[in-house]
């Protein structure tokens, strides 16, 4: 007799059963518990914590997009923050005229167009060459924004205040409001991300990553797939950029610089490339590491603080870089692999097997 709550054996009799996301009721139940937990979480957090949580969720959304481009399609993207920036600047330009729930998809679509344009070289070049092309896009984007008077030359562009169903978002509820917005958007887009691999397009993404010539021979169009991958990943980044703009109340070019692009790549790697949970673990791990290192640098300043040295600005990149290097050398599959190991340990718990 099959126990629907745990995996007691292989009872799969159809293809649909084999590709299902939730094999057991307990997996569905734990997801519901997790979602409800996330919904009530803000009640127990203070404003400062909410700010960090918002940031992590917004970054998670952007990293999901990067995971489509780099994780699924295998196209190294060193310009993801620029896609996010395209979304953010679109949001800053259209926000005075549109309600916020319309601004998000518009920003996403504009970023997707930018993504498709950046993806065009992928028709011709790949691997390292493509990575360098995205790097060039990132630098050209920063320069172009820095020289556009319409975009305040990279300075602060203020975002308007949001009124939603007669509910004014002000100083006190700002982070709580955007937490829920980000959360809803993130759940929807994570759902799409998880299901992407079960679609025809998702399969061709992976096929093209693994061997684009073989994929071509099997009737897929590698060029189109790559351009679409860029567009889709950039859409995620664009929505994240719009959310970031609202959340930080202003659009500044520093938030979309090469440093941030590198941060996204690091988050994707530390979390585990091409995994859904990794897209959450990566941003959470690196952001918390960054915050803790800032606190830690005060402790170091007590011991080592020579003139002309800013320990704070030294220790943070140091920890960030070490995290990347150590993960790559010792756990290339990232935090998602630890999560997998943990889950498989508890799968039949408390029984041994």
């Amino acid at each position, binding site marked *: 007799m099959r126990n629907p709550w745990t995996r007691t054996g292989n009872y799969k009799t159809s293809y649909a059963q084999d590709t299902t996301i939730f094999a057991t009721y307990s997996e569905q139940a734990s997801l519901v518990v997790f979602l409800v937990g996330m919904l009530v979480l803000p009640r127990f957090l203070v404003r400062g914590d909410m700010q960090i949580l918002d940031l992590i969720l917004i970054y998670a959304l952007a990293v999901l997009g990067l995971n489509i481009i780099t994780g699924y399609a295998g196209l190294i993207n060193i310009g993801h923050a620029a896609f996010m920036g395209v979304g953010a600047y679109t949001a800053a330009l259209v926000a005075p005229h549109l309600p916020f729930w319309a601004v998000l998809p518009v920003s996403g679509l504009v970023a997707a167009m930018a993504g498709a344009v950046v993806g065009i070289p992928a028709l011709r070049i790949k691997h390292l*060459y493509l990575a360098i092309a995205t790097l060039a896009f990132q630098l050209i984007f920063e*320069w172009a924004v820095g020289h556009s008077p319409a975009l305040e030359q990279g300075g602060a562009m203020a975002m308007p205040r949001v009124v939603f169903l007669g509910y004014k978002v002000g100083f006190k509820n700002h982070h709580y409001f955007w937490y829920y917005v980000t959360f809803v958007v993130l759940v929807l887009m994570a759902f799409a991300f998880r299901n992407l691999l079960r679609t025809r397009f998702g399969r061709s993404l992976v096929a093209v990553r693994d061997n684009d010539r073989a994929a071509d021979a099997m009737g897929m169009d590698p060029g189109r797939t790559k351009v679409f991958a860029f567009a889709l990943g950039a859409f995620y980044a664009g929505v994240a950029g719009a959310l970031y703009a609202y959340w930080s109340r202003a659009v500044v070019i520093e938030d979309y610089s090469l440093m941030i692009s590198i941060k996204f790549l690091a988050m994707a790697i530390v979390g585990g490339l091409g995994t859904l949970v990794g897209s959450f673990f990566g941003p959470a791990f690196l952001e918390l590491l960054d915050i803790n290192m800032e606190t830690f640098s005060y402790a170091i300043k007590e011991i080592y603080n020579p003139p002309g040295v800013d320990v704070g600005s030294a220790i943070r990149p140091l920890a960030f870089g070490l995290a990347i290097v150590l993960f790559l050398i010792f756990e290339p599959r990232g935090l998602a692999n630890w999560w997998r190991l943990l889950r498989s340990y508890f799968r039949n718990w408390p029984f041994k097997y």
Partner: protein
Amino acid sequence: MSYFFQLLVSGIVVGSVYALAALGFVLIYKASRVINFAHGHFIAIGAFTAYALATSLGLSVWIAAALALAFTAIVGYFTERIFLKPLVGQPIISVIMVTIGLASVFGGLIHMTPYGSGNFSLPDFLPEGGVSFAGISVSYPQLLAVVFTGVFLAAFGWFFQRSTVGIAMRAVADDQMASMSLGVSVEKVFALAWAAAGVTAAAAGLIVGAISGLNLEGLVGIGLKVFPVVILGGLDSIPGAVVGGIIIGILENLAAGYLDAYIPGGGTGDVFPFLVLLLVLWFKPHGLFGTEEIERV
């Protein structure tokens, strides 16, 4: 017209720095197919080591420079041994990311010293003034930069054509399997390539120090400018690195000289190389001298 030639001359000077920096970059790529995002930090390490030795120990600039070259070579060697060797055979993204991570680590370490922020200039070791020819003036540091680059390239040319180690390195770049079966230690060649890249990077940093002074951001920025240079010249071509470096240097200076007036805020020179990079990638992805990869299923 003399304005044009003045821009051309300063372009050649900047270009020779790029050529040196790109040379090390190409060496690493040729030997081990690794793109080194930490190259700008190697440049910074070399330059600041020389500066620290010259100012705090009071060594002459020439001795400090020689020691800095050696030190950066050692840094390069151990970087390969410790961080790159475990990743042999891993996907490209891992290798790229490890060099990005290393860039961050080096950046943090440099910030731990007083050289992380602010501008520094090497003690004067050349006479003031310069040579003037037909209305174009070239200062002694600039002249030195070009001569130094020339000497360096000649030395490397000799190294690769004549010395056993250099020939072994070329063999590995050509065919790893075949060179391994002939008794070349591929591992050692990888590490040596990184050491040689460290030397050239440090040399580039020293020249920047002689021409315009040292600043961490500026030195690391050269590490980014290397990308247009190597793409234009061809990722795996040493003559390409030199030619590409000079061309990018000249284009950058001409763009800054003629276009800045039309663009609010200026700074055209910073972005122009990357526009060139995109154009090259679109129309001639393997650059001027790079080998075209032919792929089979």
